[in-house]
């Protein structure tokens, strides 16, 4: 028993130095030197101020912007310091009531039924930066009206900002909401 303690303790201490300190710090050093943009969170800056991350969704609510999916983070949606999914089961009454409320909200905003599934469901992270092309399309009329823009200009913008599957196979068609809204602001000027 006792003769096992020396190798156990020594290995834990030594491996902590190697895998717990040297390894992450080396990776941090290389990442910061070679790929600082990614290593610091793929931040988007506008006029020198950070307005968000290209990878993290934001909780747009104004009529002038495209809306993201509902989010399950607390206390407010798209809280990027406490990621969270709803984890509600398919037969949860809370889920049904929440979705019903969102269906009503979207109807009031003039979106046609049936709604794309992502428009009324929360993502796994609560920080999904994307919506489906269908949900973006469904919002075109609302945004165009709020901004006094031609329907076609907004529709074309959604088309341009829609990312397709990589190599035609990998991933899903999607629209990054923050990038779309940034392009929208640029369009209006």
């Amino acid at each position, binding site marked *: 028993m006792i003769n096992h303690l020396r190798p156990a303790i020594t290995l834990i201490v030594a491996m902590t130095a190697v895998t717990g300190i040297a390894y992450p710090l080396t*990776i941090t050093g290389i990442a910061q030197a070679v790929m600082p943009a990614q290593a*610091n969170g793929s931040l988007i800056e506008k006029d020198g101020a950070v307005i968000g991350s290209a990878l*993290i969704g934001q909780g747009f609510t104004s009529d002038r912007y495209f809306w993201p999916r509902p989010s399950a983070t607390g206390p407010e949606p798209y809280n990027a310091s406490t990621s969270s999914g709803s984890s509600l089961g398919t037969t949860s009454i809370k889920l049904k009531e929440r979705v019903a409320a969102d269906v009503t909200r979207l109807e009031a905003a003039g979106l046609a039924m049936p709604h794309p599934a992502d428009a009324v469901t929360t993502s796994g*992270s609560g920080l999904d930066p994307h919506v489906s092309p269908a949900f973006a399309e469904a919002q075109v009329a609302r945004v165009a009206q709020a901004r006094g823009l031609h329907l076609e200009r907004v529709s074309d913008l959604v088309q341009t900002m829609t990312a397709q599957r990589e190599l035609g196979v990998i991933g899903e068609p999607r629209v990054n909401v923050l990038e779309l809204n940034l392009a929208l602001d640029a369009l209006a000027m």
Partner: protein
Amino acid sequence: MTITGWLQISLLFLAVLLVVKPLGLYMARVSSGERTFLSPVLGRVESNLYRLAGIDTGREQSWRAYVTAMLIFSLVGFVALYALLRFQASLPLNPQSFTGMSPDLAFNTAISFVTNTNWQNYGGETTLSHLSQMVGLTVQNFLSAATGMALAVAFTRAFARSKAATLGNFWVDVTRATLYVLLPLSIIVALVFVAMGLPQTLDASVTATTLEGANQVISLGPVASQEAIKQLGTNGGGFFNVNAAHPFENPTAWSNYLNIFAMLSISAALVYAFGQMVGNRRQGWALISAMAVLLISGVAFIYWAEAQGNTILTAIGVDPSLGNMEGKEIRFGQAMTALYAGVTTGLSNGGVNGMHGSLTGLGGLVPMFLIQLGEVLPGGVGSGLYGMLVFALLSVFVAGLMVGRTPEFLGKKIEGREMKFAMLAVLVLPLAILGFTAVSAMLPLAVASIGTAGPHGLSEILYAYTSAAGNNGSAFGGLSGNTPWYNTTLGLAMLLGRFAYVVPVMAIAGSLAAKVKAPGSAGTFPTDGPLFVGLLIGIILILGGLQFFPALALGPIADHLAMLAGQSF
């Protein structure tokens, strides 16, 4: 379901198939103590470590000494991690000034990482200092995986050797697994992850001012380095609360592929290494085939179930064409989420890229069932291989009974002693899973933690103990597991699943190593052909799975029927 979706799933398995052989051969060399291309760099580190720790590399251990060394190594690791988590408030590298963990949560978390489970009853970005993440969790991510690999290698030697009293040296096996396999692969994968967009910084967060003028605090940290070993070591404990559903752990479809590829490769390659080390590569492929059939069936079943959508929501005006999107990310969609969910539970990884608790009844049944089969598809690093070998022994035993011959596996006679220990090991899972679930389902303070009432509530409890005892770590997150009851009992289930399982398994190894390795005769049942693969799959399903069926009928299957009937709870 689409052709594209099936193609996405197939591509991943093809990619893994390509690395199984080269990686397996490399790992066989490492495990046999041979020189590798990394020896010029790491040889000195290795020998200095041995000298410092007083390890005599020439001295091998009996199975008892090997297991004792493993238990003490795990115990010391547990104590160190527990202390770190309790006292993180007074330690450096705590930019967000988090307090120390409560005793029960620290107990649960420390056991969770030492047993390679990585169940998360804590939210990473809201609970843990950078020091705890790096020096605590990352270290055990390496060491618990290396421990599993060492045990599997020792078990392999029992078949490779004839009339041997020893199984190798635990300290050497752990050190070489860490230095030659896990560390170099982690460095490569971590850097690729950064290129894909995973953050790697010591800053805790950045505050953004959104286009609508609100403040958004975005958590950051050394994510990429932890994500790499989280996958390679089949650990699964994420930097963030929502694990690899978080865009910073898994920003793109490519990173999703790399995540799954990294978790699957080592476990699959280790099976090939087994074939190489026992001198029968076809045996390695036979085991891999059985694993692949069950794993791919599981993934396909989840994909099918989830692509149908939630019929309760369809009825109130939701278009089902995207499938069940609650708890899933747009960038992954149904196929890539099903792929992740199947692989993470066929392995004992337990990371998730979507919320398993929001899967449909049948879609959620599969991950639970894959864990209950014993985490052998191909299972955790090391633990999957020795788990699969126990099933292989049971299979030849059953085959032997059918034809009335003494069962043999790889030239070793399988007798009463081995069978008793094998049954002892196989019974640990149902005992821990069904026992704790039954008690919790009757205990008001335990039932109070469920998130969705009705059959799904039972599924949440059943999944929790399944995940803990299987050392998986994924969860139906609706269950509020951070209570003294669940922290303690889930901790115990993890301990049972890891150690109460592996001690009898290593006893089998000791007993087999001592036997003569006899060459096969005309009457020997070949264990590297399709007949054996079929038998093995049957044994895994019947012995591993059937005992859970009544519980599954009351949970996920009832949940599915309720959904079809439009019943919410």
